C-alpha cells in the first residue's frame, strides 16, 4: 500500500517549494533567458548600440566550417573523457575496495585531485608535458617519442583528455566506491562458494549492480566534459594547435569573454544548451533501459 501525504492548505506546498524554485529561476532560467535574447542581437562591446538580427548569429555559425568541426572535436573529447574517466575510476574503485590495510590512505590520495581547480590541473599537466622542459616530455624523448603538442593535434588532444580525466576521476571513484560498498557481501560470498572466480564475480554480480551508478556517472561526465573543461583547455592548449582542441564550450568562453562577440557567443551557448538537453533525454530514454535498479 502506498502511503500518500496530502497538503490541506493550498499555499503551503508553494511556500515549501519557493526556495528551490527561486534559486533555479535566478541562477538558471534568468541567465538562460538572457542568453536566448542576446543570441538574437548583435551589439558593440559596451552595449550602446544593439541591433536585432533575428537568426543571423545562428546562420553565421552554420556557415563557419571551424564551428562545425568543433562538434566533432567535442564529440571525440567528451566520449574519451567519459569512457576513460569512468573505466579508470571503476578499476581503481574495485581495487581500493579489496585493499585491507591502509585503505584510507589510498582512498584519500585518489580523492585528492578533485580539490584541484581545473585551471591548475591544466597548468600542472602542461608543465609535465611541456616540450623540451617537461618531465614527461623529457622521458618520452628518451624512449624515442617526439612529443610536441604545440604542433601535433593528436598529442594535444591526449594532453587535455588526460588532464580532464585526472580531474574527474576522484568524483567517479567516490561514487563507485560507495556503490561497491552497498553491494551485499553475501551475494559475492555465495558466488565464491559456487566457484566463481573474481573476474566472473565482477562481471556477473558487481558490475550489473553498479549500473545505476555507472549511468548516473555517464550523464554527469558528459555534462562535465561539455561544460566544465574550458579552464583546462584555456590553461593548457588554448584550443590549439589550429582548432584541434577547441571544444564548443571553449569557443563560447573565447568568443564571449575574450573577443567580446556577445551575440555570437550567446548563440553558441543556446546551441550547447539544446545539445545537452537532447543528449540527456536520449541517455534517459535509451541507456537507462539497460540499467537494473
Amino acid at each position, binding site marked *: 500500500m502506498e502511503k500518500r501525504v496530502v497538503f490541506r492548505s493550498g499555499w503551503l506546498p508553494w511556500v515549501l517549494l519557493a526556495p528551490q524554485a527561486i534559486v533555479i529561476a535566478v541562477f538558471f532560467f534568468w541567465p538562460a533567458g538572457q542568453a536566448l535574447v542576446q543570441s538574437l542581437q*548583435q551589439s558593440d562591446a559596451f552595449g550602446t548600440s544593439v541591433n536585432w538580427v533575428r537568426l543571423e548569429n545562428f546562420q553565421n555559425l552554420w556557415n563557419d566550417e571551424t564551428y562545425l568541426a568543433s562538434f566533432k572535436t567535442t564529440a571525440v573529447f567528451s566520449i574519451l573523457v567519459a569512457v576513460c574517466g569512468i573505466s579508470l575510476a571503476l578499476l581503481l574503485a574495485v581495487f581500493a575496495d579489496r585493499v585491507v590495510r591502509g585503505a584510507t590512505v589510498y582512498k584519500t590520495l585518489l580523492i585528492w585531485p578533485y580539490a584541484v581547480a581545473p585551471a591548475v590541473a591544466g597548468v600542472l599537466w602542461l608543465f609535465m608535458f611541456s616540450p623540451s622542459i617537461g618531465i614527461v616530455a623529457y622521458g618520452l624523448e628518451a624512449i624515442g617519442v617526439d612529443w610536441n603538442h604545440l604542433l601535433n593535434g593528436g598529442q594535444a588532444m591526449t594532453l587535455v583528455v588526460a588532464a580532464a580525466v585526472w580531474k574527474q576521476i576522484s568524483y567517479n571513484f567516490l561514487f563507485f566506491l560507495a556503490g561497491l560498498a552497498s553491494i551485499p557481501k553475501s551475494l559475492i560470498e555465495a558466488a565464491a562458494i559456487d566457484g566463481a572466480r573474481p573476474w566472473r564475480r565482477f562481471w556477473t554480480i558487481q558490475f550489473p549492480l553498479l549500473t545505476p551508478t555507472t549511468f548516473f556517472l555517464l550523464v554527469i561526465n558528459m555534462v562535465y566534459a561539455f561544460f566544465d573543461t574550458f579552464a583546462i583547455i584555456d590553461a593548457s592548449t588554448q584550443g590549439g594547435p589550429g582548432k584541434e582542441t577547441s571544444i564548443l564550450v571553449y569557443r563560447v568562453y573565447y*568568443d564571449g569573454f575574450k573577443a567580446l562577440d556577445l551575440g555570437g557567443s550567446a548563440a553558441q551557448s543556446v546551441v550547447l544548451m539544446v545539445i545537452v538537453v537532447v543528449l540527456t533525454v536520449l541517455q534517459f530514454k535509451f541507456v537507462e533501459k539497460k540499467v537494473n535498479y
Partner: protein
Amino acid sequence: MNKKTSALLSSFVAAASVLALSTPAHAQVEIQWWHSMTAVNGEWVNDLAKDFNASQKEYKIVPTFKGTYDESMTGAIAAFRAGNAPHILQVFEVGTATMMASKGAIIPVGQVMKDAGVKFDPAAYVPAVAGYYTAPNGQMLSFPFNSSTTIFYYNKDAFKAAGLDADKPPTTWPEVVGAAAKLKASGHKCPFTTAWQGWTQLESFSAWHNVEFATQRNGLAGLNARMKVDSPLHQRHIENLANMSKQGLFVYKGRGNVPEASFVSGECAMINTSSGFYGNVAKNAKFAYGLAALPYYPDVPGAPQNTVIGGASLWVLSGKKPAEYKGVAAFFNYLSSPEVQSASHKRTGYLPVTTAAYQLTEKSGFYKEKPGTDVAVTQMIRKTTDKSRGIRLGNYVQIRAIEDEELEQVWGGKKTAKEALASIVKRGNELLERFEKANKS
C-alpha cells in the same frame, strides 16, 4: 566589559577620529584608473599616480590592477553596463577598434583636453603612435601610454660558439637562415623562434616591407577594411619559415609571449618579439645578448620601412562629472611632459611616445650606456606611409587567434603557406564584415 576590550575599543575610537580629522574639509576629486600592469611595470604605474597626486591637491588618481588586458577590458565593459565604470581604462592595441566603435561609451582624449582648457598637441607624438590612436577625422581618441614594437634578440654566446660574428647580427632573412644553419651545425637545438607570430611575422612584417596587411590603410581609414595577407611577399616569407621549420632551423614554441622563456633559458638563440621583452632579458639572461632591428628581404623596394606598435593606451569612459574630467585632463597633461615620458621609457623599455622625450633621453646618454635600447625607437621614429602607419581592425582579438591557428597548421606541415594565408584572409574577412555590420550606426 573587561579591561582589554575597553582598551582596544578606545584605541579604535582614537584611530577613527584621527582618520576623520585627516580627511580635508575640501574633498579631493577621485579618479579611478584601471590598468593591467604587473610586477615592475605595476610599481611604475603606482609611482606615476603617487607623483601626480603629490604634485597638486585637487585631484587624486587611484590606480587599480584589474587583471590581464582582456580581463580588465571585459571587466570595464561589465562595469560600464552596470553604471560604475572607471574614468580611465588601459586598453591594449588589439582592443582599439572595439573601443573606437563604442562611440557612446568613450570620450575622445582630444575632446577631454579641449573641454578642460588644457593645451594638447597631437603633433608632439611620434607619428606611428599618434596615427594609430587617431580617428579618420584627425581627432585623437585615446592617450598613448605604453607602446612597444617588435624587434630581434640574439644570443651572443651562441653566435660565438657557432663561429658567427657576435657583433654582426643578421639584418636580412637570408642572413637569418644562414646564421640558423650555422647554429644548428654547432649543435644548437633551436636556432630561431618567434613570439606573437601573427604580430611579428604578418603584421609588423607587412609594415616593415611597406606592403598592405589590410585594405583601407590597414583599417585606419574605415571599418570596411579587408585582409590582404595572401600577397606573394607574405607567401614567400611564410614558405621560408616553413622550410626553416622543416630543417629544424625554426622551432615553434607556442602562442603569445610563451616562446620568450626559451630565449631567456638559452634554448633558442634568436627570437622575434616585443621590445617590452627587454626588461626580462636584462634581468634574467645568463649570457651575452644583443638587440637588433627586424630582419627584412633586401630585394623588396622600400624595405625596411617602420614597424607597427603594440602595447596599450588610456581611454576615457563616458558618464562622469565635468570636474572629474578636468582631473583626467590634468593627469594626462602631467604624463605628456618630456621628463615624465623619458623617465618612464628608461625605466620600462616601453617607447617614448613623444619626439621631445626621445630627444631628452638621447641627450642623457642612455642609449650609449645601454646599447640596443634605441633599436625599437629608431624602428618607430620614421616617416610612416599609408601602408605602415599601423593596423587597426575590428574583431582583432579573433583575427589574431585565426593567424595563430592557421600558422600552426603550416609549421605542423598540414597546410601550405598559400592555403593557410588564403584561409586567414577568408576567415578574417568574415569577421571584418560582421564587425562592420554590428557597428554601423
